[in-house]
């Protein structure tokens, strides 16, 4: 039962996060607008920049922006730690600032294609810059590929810890479905739900990657716009991601 042995190894570390995580949040963060894959490619390193910006006729939303810069390296075929070196946020009507750092872990539990769907786990800790409660996130990552179609589902629970933390757990979910026309062009849709904020969004995205000639690296991109489905969600959230993956 390779499934069990791989799961056991990965969950040893992940459980440390999971046992503590259950209760708060507030505004969206840059990592709220990504649908993670459970796949870990052993030996691969990454440098990634991603973020979002909101355009909305309402002053409480318009002008909100966030971005994150991170580095990652997959030490094994089942564990990829990622360090967010800088997290920037700008709230509507206020100036932008660096808000913290984050240590994120992706655990791959099953070999891609071996079971009906591929399963992994996300576990992260976000540390605020300048004090305040930290943030734990944990939840399963699910992926199913059928030919050129790829479907991902994330279920993430989020809880604040430390001084001043609220004793409440927030939940969010996300879905991404893409169709690989080519390696460089994968159009699709993404959908996000944050029930605690009563915010539901969905919209078109395009992703893809190019091999960098004479290297063992790829440049990967993703852009899209999420439309607010209900009144409590921002009307237009523009998302973008640029990543360099290499060995």
């Amino acid at each position, binding site marked *: 039962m390779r*499934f069990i042995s791989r799961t056991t190894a990965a969950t040893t570390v992940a459980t440390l996060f999971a046992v503590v995580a259950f209760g708060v949040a507030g505004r969206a963060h840059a990592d709220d607008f990504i649908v993670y894959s459970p*796949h870990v*490619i*052993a*030996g*691969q390193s990454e440098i990634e920049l991603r973020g979002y910006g909101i355009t909305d006729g309402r002053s409480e939303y318009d002008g909100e922006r966030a971005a994150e810069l991170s580095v990652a390296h997959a030490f094994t075929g089942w564990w990829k730690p990622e360090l967010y070196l800088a997290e920037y946020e700008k709230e509507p009507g206020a100036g932008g600032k660096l808000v913290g750092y984050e240590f994120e872990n992706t655990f791959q539990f*099953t*070999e*891609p*294609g*071996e*079971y*009906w*769907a591929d*399963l992994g786990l996300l576990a992260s800790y976000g540390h605020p810059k300048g004090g305040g409660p930290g943030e734990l996130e944990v939840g399963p990552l699910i992926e199913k*590929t059928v*030919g*050129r*179609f*790829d479907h991902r589902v994330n279920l993430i629970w989020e809880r604040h810890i430390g001084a001043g933390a609220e004793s409440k757990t927030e939940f969010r979910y996300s879905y991404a479905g893409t169709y*690989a026309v*080519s*390696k460089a062009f994968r159009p699709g849709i993404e959908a996000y739900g944050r029930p605690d904020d009563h915010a539901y969004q969905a919209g078109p995205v395009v992703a893809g990657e190019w*091999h960098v000639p004479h290297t*063992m690296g*790829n440049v990967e991109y993703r852009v899209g716009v999420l439309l607010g489905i209900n009144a409590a969600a921002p009307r237009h959230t523009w998302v973008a991601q640029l990543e360099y993956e290499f*060995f």
Partner: protein
Amino acid sequence: MNRLALAAVLLLWSFAARATDVPEFHLAIQDHAYQPAELKVPAGTKVKLVIENRDASPEEFESTEFNREKIVLPNSTITVYVGPLKPGSYRFFGDFHQDTAQGRLIVE
């Protein structure tokens, strides 16, 4: 709550329910080329590809047409699960040597 527990059990069961007796097929990478360049596999069933890299540099086994991407370190072997696929011809390649590392799965 009971419904939630039942859904969780069904979800876990579906992940654990893998096909038994998955047929196995072998590919090699040598001089930055796949051997054989065309590999015949059965339609409508999951298959296991065992890929051996005999070169001194890594290669990335990749296919857009059946959505797989996996690194093969020098002088090492990986397994990749593919399918079930409909009959047809599916391209795969080596991401680091796309000029020479080209192949096709012939599904029939």
